[in-house]
């Protein structure tokens, strides 16, 4: 059963097509990711679903409600975390949670949420004294005050250290285990691979591909990736012409090439390097990732 349905959604700001014909559906208890660089249209799409922005055209349904027409009722049922909100600096953590709970006619939820997000020890701390990661966790806690069946998380782990990020991933997995639906935007590939049942890859206001992370990689890369550093002696076309190489890309001095037959390609590469006096360094073999898929589909990296 789909709890979010989007058909041909469009939103334009002046000349900029922020969202340019986006369609997708999110199933109940699914973690659905929107992966793309800044400016891809992820946030605009999510904020339309949350009832925060009007759309230009297209059909949108969240829990069977139209966010454009029934935002009031919808807001009671969804949990929202936005980017770059800096909450009341001189309120204590528990006070902010109780404040937000009051908007939904609830009270006494702070203890549960603080332990869920690992913020028990910061209960009496002022918001301004929290670290960036703790503030992010607080804003996720605020998305949970009304015990919502759908949670929208807009780049929830930005600014977190790796440990805090992993801990929030566990929390999100718990949401899913409780039967909640999560719509998550991110530009971290590992995050999408670890958490998402399905990922929509977005760029320039469009969805380029939607599938599970494994299938996205499998569809676009039957091959393994060979990575190495070089000074700049070998051109992309030259590398692509090596035996069994299907695709290559150069980012600075780092080269990724994808091969059907790793031993053949690698032998040919090393020989070419030797002939040209180009040292092939930091040679590494790995599986293709979502990052590679994104690069192949858009010609850009996620963090551009």
């Amino acid at each position, binding site marked *: 059963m789909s709890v979010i349905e989007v058909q041909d959604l469009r939103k334009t700001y002046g000349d900029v097509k922020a969202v340019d014909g986006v369609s997708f559906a999110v199933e109940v208890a699914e973690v659905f990711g929107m992966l793309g660089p800044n400016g891809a249209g992820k946030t605009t799409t999510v904020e339309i679903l949350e009832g925060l922005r009007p759309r230009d055209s297209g059909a949108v349904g969240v829990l069977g409600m139209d966010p454009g027409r029934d935002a009031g009722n919808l807001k009671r049922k969804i949990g929202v975390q936005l980017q770059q909100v800096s909450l009341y600096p001189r309120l204590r953590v528990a006070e902010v949670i109780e404040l937000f709970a009051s908007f939904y*006619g609830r009270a006494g939820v702070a203890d549960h949420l603080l332990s869920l997000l690992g913020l028990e020890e910061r209960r009496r701390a002022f918001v301004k004294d929290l670290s960036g990661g703790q503030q992010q966790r607080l804003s996720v806690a605020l998305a949970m005050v009304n015990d919502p069946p759908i949670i929208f998380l807009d780049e929830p782990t930005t600014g977190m250290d790796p440990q805090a990020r992993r801990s929030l991933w566990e929390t999100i997995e718990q949401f899913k285990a409780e039967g909640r639906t999560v719509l998550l935007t991110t530009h971290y590939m590992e995050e999408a691979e670890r958490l998402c049942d399905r990922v929509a890859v977005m760029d320039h206001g469009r969805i380029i591909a939607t599938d599970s992370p494994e299938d996205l990689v499998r569809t676009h890369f039957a091959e393994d990736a060979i990575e190495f550093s070089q000074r700049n002696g070998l051109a992309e076309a030259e590398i692509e012409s090596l035996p069994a190489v299907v695709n290559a890309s150069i980012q600075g001095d780092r080269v990724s090439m994808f091969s059907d037959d790793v031993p053949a390609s690698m032998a040919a590469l090393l020989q070419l390097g030797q002939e040209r006096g180009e040292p092939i360094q930091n040679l590494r073999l790995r599986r293709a990732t979502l990052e590679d898929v994104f690069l192949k589909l858009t010609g850009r990296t996620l963090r551009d």
Partner: protein
Amino acid sequence: MRALAQLTLANTREFVRDRAALFWTFAFPLLFVLIFGLVFSRDSATQYEIGLVNEDASPQAGVLVDTLEAMDVFDLSGGNLADEIASLEDGDRRAVIAIPSGWGASIDSGSPMPVDIHYDETRQSSQQVVVPVILQAFEVVDRTLTRSQPVVRPAFQTLRSERLSTIDFIVPGIVAFSVMNAGVFGAVNIVSLRERRVLRRLQATPVSRLTLVSADLILRMVLVLAQSAILIVVARLVFDIRLNSDAGSLAGLAGVVVLGGLAFLAIGFFLGSFTKTEQGFFPVAQVVTFPMMFISGVFFPLEFMPDWLRPVINVLPLTHLAEATRQLMIGGATTIPMGVAVAAMAAYLVVFVALAVRLFRWE
């Protein structure tokens, strides 16, 4: 209701935990009052000027005059009643004591005539210091003359002096000026919430715009009332300013302070809808409030202003607030009738609320 209460509580906590906000709201206006008070207060002397009108040549009257002359706190001057009352009205006397002709004889006959004490009821020190000391002197005379029963019967005659000291004039101006600042600069809260994207976050909850704004209004109105009350009480205690302290005047004053506060808050919301950041808001608010402080009759009477500026001054909201506040606090004639001042502030409120609602942005 829970949401409104919690939001008001949140705003209040944010305010009381912000030392800078506390300073600008309470300490800064108080500093103004203290500085102006120390410069202009006329009650620095420890002696009070008392007019003594003696129309009786009896020995008893002589005893009363001697007793009063012996009081160090009194600086006595004699004359006829009309002149002394005129001096009292001008503020040159704190009280006038009139011994009527035939007073000594009336004591001898067993039914003493009253002795009139004229004083200015608008001065707290007259009621609390001057009159009690006079009554003390009367008791001394009672004991000297009879040792048995009181013979000096005081009769209180109150009047309201026309002459105002500079501090009497300035304190209502500072009250109005502080209400303006608390109102206009109070709107920075919304600007700051918008800049920090908290408004956007609140928009994603079911809380209504009306609840949001109401919570802000409640705190701001409590603040302007508290601020005005503290200013007036301190000025009264320290500098003995003139104040109409009857319930009607005080209630009217509270009403005018709230109306003015709302009007200036609406103006602040309006200004805030043009500025993206808190840092950007302050200069804009300064440009609007600073000139008014000098030309709206806060520190100088409107009569001192050049004629060509009067049409501008007469439409400024602070002019109306200052005139209304002054009229309620010290009475007397003003250049703008109370009804006009109240109507003008109400008009500012309605117009700027409409503009602010129209220009409101969540982000």
